[in-house]
């Protein structure tokens, strides 16, 4: 088990290296002078060389990359052109709200999605099934920025139940998390359902029936545990899309998170910010999938030993 975990962790390292290369290369793909790009526009000609050196943009591309990574390890992601502050510090200030949204959305959508999926599978091809599938289809297909507006109009403006901005209190967190979570409910419902239906047709379920195991136990113990494996993968993947989707929710609900920071960074051509944010988001996603992978082994003994 430990060995597997260790191996899995080591496996992500090459992945992270390539990832960092891609993010590093990003800025280089932008037409124009990287020094100017990384500095914003106003770089005085006499300080150009100094800035180039400071930004680590001197030397060959390989040297530059190595230096960039070294700096990353020192926690240096450069300085924001716009706010003039260290990017890492800025990201640190904004990471929590995004994490709350993504984790909250993941938890919410997992609970609803798994519930829906289970119910739909149990009532396969009956009204409940069709109803839940259509509902979850509507959830995935409605743009979150659209549903966010509608939820605000109803729950903030009309009913005055919930705040429409910020993430200051648990009450304020409800609407954004719900908006974000709903986008993932659909795919989790689908995965849970099809995975359940898949499992229910497996031979070992028939074996369990032949042993006289009560139907309820079969569904919740024998089938569910097996069905959970693809659902876990799906949850891991969903976390990524929620992380990115938080951008939209943060925009509508005026939450100062990573996503909005990224979008502002793009709008401001603040490339150090864009680079840093993209890197942090992608790494978080990779790490979450690593955790999910490790969780598998708790659910699926085949991974632990084989």
């Amino acid at each position, binding site marked *: 088990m430990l060995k597997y975990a260790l191996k899995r962790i080591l496996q992500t390292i*090459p*992945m992270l290296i*390539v*990832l960092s290369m*891609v993010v590093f290369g*990003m800025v280089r*793909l*932008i037409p124009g002078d990287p020094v100017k790009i990384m500095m914003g526009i106003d770089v005085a000609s006499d300080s150009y060389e100094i800035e180039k050196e400071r930004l680590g943009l001197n030397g060959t591309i390989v040297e530059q990359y190595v230096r960039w990574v070294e700096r990353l390890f020192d926690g240096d992601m450069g300085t924001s052109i716009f706010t003039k502050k260290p990017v890492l510090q800025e990201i640190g200030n904004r990471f929590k709200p995004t994490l709350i949204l993504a984790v909250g959305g993941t938890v919410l959508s997992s609970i609803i999605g798994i519930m829906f999926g289970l119910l739909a599978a149990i009532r396969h091809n009956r009204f409940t099934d069709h109803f839940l599938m*259509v509902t979850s*289809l*509507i959830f*995935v*297909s*409605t*743009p*979150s*920025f*659209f549903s966010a*507006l*509608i939820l605000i*109009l109803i729950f903030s403006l009309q009913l005055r139940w919930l705040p429409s901005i910020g993430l200051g209190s648990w009450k304020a967190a409800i609407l954004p998390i719900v908006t974000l979570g709903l*986008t993932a409910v659909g*795919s989790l419902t689908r*995965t849970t359902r*099809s*995975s359940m*239906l*898949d499992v229910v047709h497996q031979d070992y379920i028939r074996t369990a029936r032949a042993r006289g195991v009560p139907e309820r136990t079969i569904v919740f113990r024998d089938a569910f545990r097996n069905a959970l494996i*693809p659902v876990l993968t*799906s949850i891991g*993947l*969903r976390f*990524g*899309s*929620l*992380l*990115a*989707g938080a*951008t*939209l929710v943060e*925009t509508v609900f005026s939450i100062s998170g990573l996503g909005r920071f*990224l*979008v502002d*960074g*793009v*709008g401001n051509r603040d*490339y150090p910010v*864009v680079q840093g944010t*993209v890197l942090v*988001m*992608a790494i978080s*996603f*990779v790490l979450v999938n690593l955790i999910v992978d490790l969780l598998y082994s708790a659910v699926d003994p085949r991974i632990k030993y084989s």
Partner: protein
Amino acid sequence: MTFQAVWKRFKRRKTSLIALFILLFIFAVALVGPFFTKYEPTEMALKNKYAPVSLDNPLGTDQLGRDTLTRLIYGSRVSLSIAFAGVLSGCFVGVLLGVLAGYFGSWVDSLISRLIDVLLAFPGLLLAIAIVAILGNGVLNTMIAVAIFCVPSMARIVRGIVISLKNQEFVQACQVMGASTGRILFRHVLTNAMSMIIVTVTLDLGSSILTASALSFLGLGVMPPNPEWGAMLNAGKEVMRSYPLGVLAPGLAITIVVISFSLVGDGLRDALDPRLKNLKIGESQ
């Protein structure tokens, strides 16, 4: 399988059939609608702003007195052409990579798989934002973002199918017969993967409309006055209290089109290959 057989099976799912008709209707409107609209998409009647729903303006007018229906129709052209051009080119590349990786294996596979992994490490929207950050705004760049967004999942799906097909005995039979790689790929592997590819493309079309509209909603994709649906929604948001249709119309348009693509995709999956029913398609959105 013949077209008739597929159609017969497809017809059985009523929801998918309805969705198909909705899509066909929307395509038709996007194609010929502009010849029938009374107004230009940018034509203003400042005196007539926020006109209520009427015969002249079936969906009312916006804050500049522009006819919302007209804009919606023109917008469908933008949104759909971004989706189609982006998805088709992205999926083409994805299929190519997937086939190469799946069929040739070894280092080609390792290389492509790593590339796919890295692209997949960027959640869809993040990838699109990053691409637009590099390329800048505009319709063309949004298409490119959508295209790149489609590549990794398609490549992964195709790779999986190709690997499983490659181990199918009928493909090995061709190898034993001395068939060329090209023949095996095109005649046997691709044709058998085609139904899955078609289904994936259909589902990708839906999710890329969501992505493209999300980009323009963030002010990063298509810019006004181009009547892309996401951009319209963004613009309408400011006046949504005075003119709810400005948000509702594009929002519902996006939702309906995306739902329809999903339903058609599901229907196609069942119709094209009943065996694929429980296959999990690459996660989208």
